[in-house]
């Protein structure tokens, strides 16, 4: 079976043009395959490159070399249009930060990925409300913008948005951070359900118990750290 994520010999360096053109190699020869229905946890110390790898998988950072395939799309060298289509249909991302247009009601923020796919607005709204209810966002907040919500509430809005469409591939950046035990349990169930329907997941989980429960494998990204050149 072809893997959902297929990463081969990926390297990445940052060139800081305005700081003496310093070249900072951050990743070398990273390879990783994630099958459908599988969850892989990225581990390694802070600064080891977990987020960098996640961002490359999302097309947010450009890889310097190698190949990153997600589903049918090769991200290295892809046109913006192809990356947008991939993100719309195939690849979901739950980040730690909520970035939204101010004033847009929470219900619409969560419905957004389905509307972008052209789903019926009525059904979409119902589905968004279902997700919000499941993540215990009180109904009186649904018509308000999430920009003024607490950290934990914003995180749950982000999760609702990331799971509202059944993405075949998911990137999760600390999905259970800043959640109370009840909501944490809900999120872990959502992840398990996503795996059961065949989604391939790459995640960063600092919560060791959560990681042990949902991840099938752990990959220590320290192994992808470039040799420090003298």
């Amino acid at each position, binding site marked *: 079976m072809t893997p959902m994520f297929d990463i081969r010999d990926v390297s990445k360096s*940052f*060139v*800081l*043009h*305005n700081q003496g053109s310093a070249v900072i190699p951050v990743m070398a020869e990273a390879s990783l395959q994630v099958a459908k229905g599988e969850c892989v946890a990225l581990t390694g110390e802070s600064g080891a490159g977990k987020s960098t790898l996640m*961002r490359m998988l999302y*097309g*947010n*950072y*450009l890889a310097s070399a190698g190949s990153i395939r997600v589903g049918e799309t090769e991200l290295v060298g892809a046109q*913006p*249009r192809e*990356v*947008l289509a991939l993100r719309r249909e195939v690849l979901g991302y739950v980040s730690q930060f909520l*970035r*939204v*247009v*101010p*004033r*847009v009601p929470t219900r619409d923020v969560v419905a957004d990925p389905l*509307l*972008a796919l052209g789903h019926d607005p009525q059904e979409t709204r119902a589905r968004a409300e279902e997700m919000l209810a499941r993540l215990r966002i009180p109904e009186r907040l649904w018509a308000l913008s999430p920009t003024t919500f607490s950290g934990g509430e914003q995180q749950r809005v982000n999760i609702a948005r990331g799971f509202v469409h059944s993405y075949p591939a998911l990137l999760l950046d600390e999905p259970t951070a800043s959640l109370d035990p009840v909501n944490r349990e809900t999120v872990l169930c959502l992840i398990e359900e996503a795996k059961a329907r065949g989604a391939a997941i790459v995640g960063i989980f600092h919560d060791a118990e959560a990681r042990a429960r949902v991840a099938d494998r752990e990959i220590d990204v320290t192994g992808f750290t470039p040799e420090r050149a003298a």
Partner: protein
Amino acid sequence: MTPILDVRNLSKNYGRNIGCMDVNFSLYPGEVIGIVGESGSGKSTLLGCMAGHLRPSAGEVLFDTRAEGPRDVLRMSEPERRMLARTDWAFVHQNPRDGLRMTVSAGGNVGERLMAVGARHYGDIRAQAVDWLGRVEISDARIDDRPSTFSGGMQQRLQIARNLVTGPRLVFMDEPTGGLDVSVQARLLDLLRALVRDMGLSAVIVTHDLAVVRLLADRLMVMKSGRVVETGLTDQVLDDPQHAYTQLLVSSVLQV
């Protein structure tokens, strides 16, 4: 899929000075492209050349017309181009006074565009004007007031209503949120995003506000000294800028 707009080797010189140089890009239906760069980088010159306000020195601007497919707008006759500007195109100026008729009522400003494309039934025109004023959150109690009695933010929303009432397919925007206070900016951003989605608009947005393009644009072009120095997916260009100038631009933004 045919691009709605295909810009090829577009250049504009002001005497010996470069306005913009060798600009190439394609815009697909439903896509929003942001053009960013400092003042004087050629953003507005480029926009003016595409929209037919300025005469380029060289290049082609192919627009996918409804009737005949892609045609070079620079080779169209003046009446043809004007017709396009009234129907399939819209242009939102930075200063609403440049896009509105200040001595005509708000309803008249919206209705006028409809009349220019042949609407004659007064009741229908007024009903559509009321509908559009509502969409841009202007109370219909203000329909008979002149825009000169409106606040800057209201004028900008009225300009957007006037431009979009005819159902254009392509919108050019020059700093649409410039000069507005932040709460009004947020309201406009919300409005523009909804319109882009609901009407399937394609848009070219010139701005120096990186927060605005992050929320509105799918793709970015970064300009410096008249040339495009970097292009790509909006969040990729902002989070992993490759060109020295883009890195400077992104790192110069003050955090709030």
